[in-house]
């Protein structure tokens, strides 16, 4: 049997994942005077999709935007991330977003690298600009330092694989210590748990490199653990049926298309979109923000490929752009370009749409960041009814941290989380993976999942018959995986857990995609080819009840 650390770790607030949301939650929870622990899969100094930097922080800056928040609220709703937001949450976020900017600036993350507050990128001509341009190259080490300064206990190399509940309330979690080759399960007793494990990559085949599991725009270590553990614990997920795709350089999957100050062009040098003729740092080409599928459409029409051309950008703006890419954490790409002689002043770089991944699809939270399970909170990319990327993670992480701490303060003592049947059940499953001599490894399982997701719950076509058949195949695969998967050490066992989490997310995608009988965005249903105005403001939630999935429709707030 897998080793279980007999001594449970007690903490008032347990934070699952030490990314932007997790560390901001930790800092604010610790400021409330409670004991806080962050359990992190890698090392909080460099983990998650913000590992080496980011550059855009969505926010309402009163001194730039004026006293009226409403035009900014409207702008966010109309922006590239705007479709799946509860207004109530967006407003609360906007009201507090600039306070978090000031925090970061005071801690040493450069929120005004040019010396003044400047919003640039993803900007529409004649409309308010809402993305504060910052230099996040040191954001993770700084937030780690601030958390430690406040006494937060950070346990690295220990992903949380399940939360433990009792009578609908959170009482702890199961962690997998991967510091040594032999895995050890660590049981946490906690009064509040905050899930903040980032996005979910690796659910669909990598669009640039279907044979590579790690060529993904967002961190491939983020695999929907928050959504999966929440779902297993009975929490509601929302908006899972809507695919989301990012775009960027081909074939090197990397976020940050908005950092490129250039014009999208066809191979003959003809401008593709109508928005900008001369790109500047203030107004780059927003064609891809408006026309999400432009790169795919150009390719499939035979008129492609589509490129970004920075050769007509002013030398000052090119310098600015290259510097900003360092702040965004794109240093390996810049080094590679340098070594390969790729010069944005002389070359056009092809862009593409990447595979769907989960960001802003997942756990439904209230205005305190809490799910429908008492004591279970979520923040950042795995939240399904609110999204604002880095800024959303920072601000709602902060909010969840405070709420979780306040809840913990009202609870006397700890429940014996280690005695719940879940611990034995999960340890048996993990042990079975470790004890088998032969069988598929996590890679095989991951690829097998990806091909089912692509063909039966993909972005080209979904229908009642395809989704029903796909769900059958998915269940066949899941059963086989549970019966035959093998792991040889703590690292590969962790990867096995990731694939199981991705499968949990996949199941909810199949079910909700079948439930939404219309075509909307990238949810394309040829059997319901219309976009139904009656469903425009309606969301599907899914949760497990007595072991079975249960879906409900609710109005967007």
């Amino acid at each position, binding site marked *: 049997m897998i080793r279980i650390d007999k001594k449970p770790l007690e903490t008032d607030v347990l934070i699952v994942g030490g990314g932007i949301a997790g560390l901001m939650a930790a800092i604010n929870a610790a400021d409330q005077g409670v004991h806080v622990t962050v359990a992190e899969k890698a090392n909080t100094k460099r983990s998650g999709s913000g590992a080496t930097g980011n550059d855009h922080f969505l926010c309402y800056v009163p001194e730039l935007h004026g006293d009226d928040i409403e035009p900014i609220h409207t702008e966010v709703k109309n922006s590239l991330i705007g479709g799946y937001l509860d207004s109530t949450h967006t407003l609360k976020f906007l009201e507090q977003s600039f306070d978090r900017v000031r925090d970061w600036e005071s801690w040493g993350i450069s929120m005004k690298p040019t010396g003044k507050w400047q919003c640039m990128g993803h900007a529409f001509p004649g409309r308010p600009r809402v993305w504060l341009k910052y230099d996040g190259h040191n954001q993770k080490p700084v937030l780690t330092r601030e958390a430690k300064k406040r006494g937060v206990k950070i346990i690295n190399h220990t992903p949380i694989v399940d939360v433990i509940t009792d009578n609908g309330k959170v009482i702890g979690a199961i962690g997998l210590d991967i510091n040594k080759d032999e895995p050890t399960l660590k049981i946490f007793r906690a009064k509040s748990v905050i899930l903040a494990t980032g996005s979910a990559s690796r659910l669909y085949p990598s669009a*640039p490199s279907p044979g590579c599991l790690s060529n993904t725009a967002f961190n491939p270590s983020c695999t929907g653990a928050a959504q999966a553990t929440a779902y297993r614990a009975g929490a509601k997920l929302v908006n899972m049926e809507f695919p989301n795709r990012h775009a960027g350089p*081909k074939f090197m999957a990397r976020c940050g298309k908005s950092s490129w100050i250039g014009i999208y062009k066809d191979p003959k040098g003809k401008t593709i979109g109508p928005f900008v003729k001369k790109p500047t740092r203030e107004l780059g080409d927003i064609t891809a923000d408006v026309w999400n599928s432009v790169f795919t459409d150009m390719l499939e029409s035979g008129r492609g490929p589509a490129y970004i051309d920075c050769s007509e950008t002013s030398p000052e703006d090119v310098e600015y752009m290259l510097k900003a890419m360092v702040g965004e954490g794109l240093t390996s790409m810049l080094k590679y370009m340098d070594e390969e002689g790729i010069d944005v002043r002389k*070359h056009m770089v092809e862009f593409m749409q990447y595979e769907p991944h989960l960001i802003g699809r997942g756990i439904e939270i209230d205005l305190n960041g809490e799910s429908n399970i008492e004591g279970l909170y979520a923040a950042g990319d795995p939240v399904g009814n609110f999204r604002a990327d880095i800024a959303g993670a920072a601000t709602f992480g902060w909010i969840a941290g405070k709420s979780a701490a306040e809840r913990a303060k009202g609870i006397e003592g700890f429940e014996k989380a280690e005695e719940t049947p879940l611990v034995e059940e999960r340890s048996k499953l993990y042990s079975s993976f470790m004890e088998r001599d032969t069988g598929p490894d996590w890679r095989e399982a991951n690829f097998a999942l990806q091909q089912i997701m692509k063909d039966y719950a993909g972005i080209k076509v979904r229908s009642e018959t395809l989704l029903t058949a796909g769900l059958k195949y998915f269940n066949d695969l899941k059963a086989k995986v549970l019966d035959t998967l093998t792991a040889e050490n703590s*690292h590969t066992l962790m990867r096995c857990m990731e694939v199981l989490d991705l499968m949990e997310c996949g199941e909810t995608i199949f079910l909700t995609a079948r439930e939404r009988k219309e075509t909307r965005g990238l949810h394309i249903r040829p059997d319901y080819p219309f976009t139904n105005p009656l469903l425009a403001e309606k969301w599907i939630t899914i949760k497990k009840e007595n072991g079975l999935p249960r879906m409900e429709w609710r109005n967007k707030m």
Partner: protein
Amino acid sequence: MPPIIDKEKCNACGVCADICCMDVFKVVDKKKSPIIRYPEECWHCNACVLDCKHEALSLRIPLPSMMLHVDANVATD
């Protein structure tokens, strides 16, 4: 395969292995350079290169991640 450790420069401090978001490295012997145990899992985030105080780390970007580019000096509209 990425990443690559220059053993002449490496002092076996283990920072790369500790901060790698993909757990690509493995410290087998604390007195020696870590081994690159799972190279194909590297995300090329560059954290190991940035955080190595001895400049012992470099990344080799694999062929499937090649960046596609053409000359920009074509006729423009």
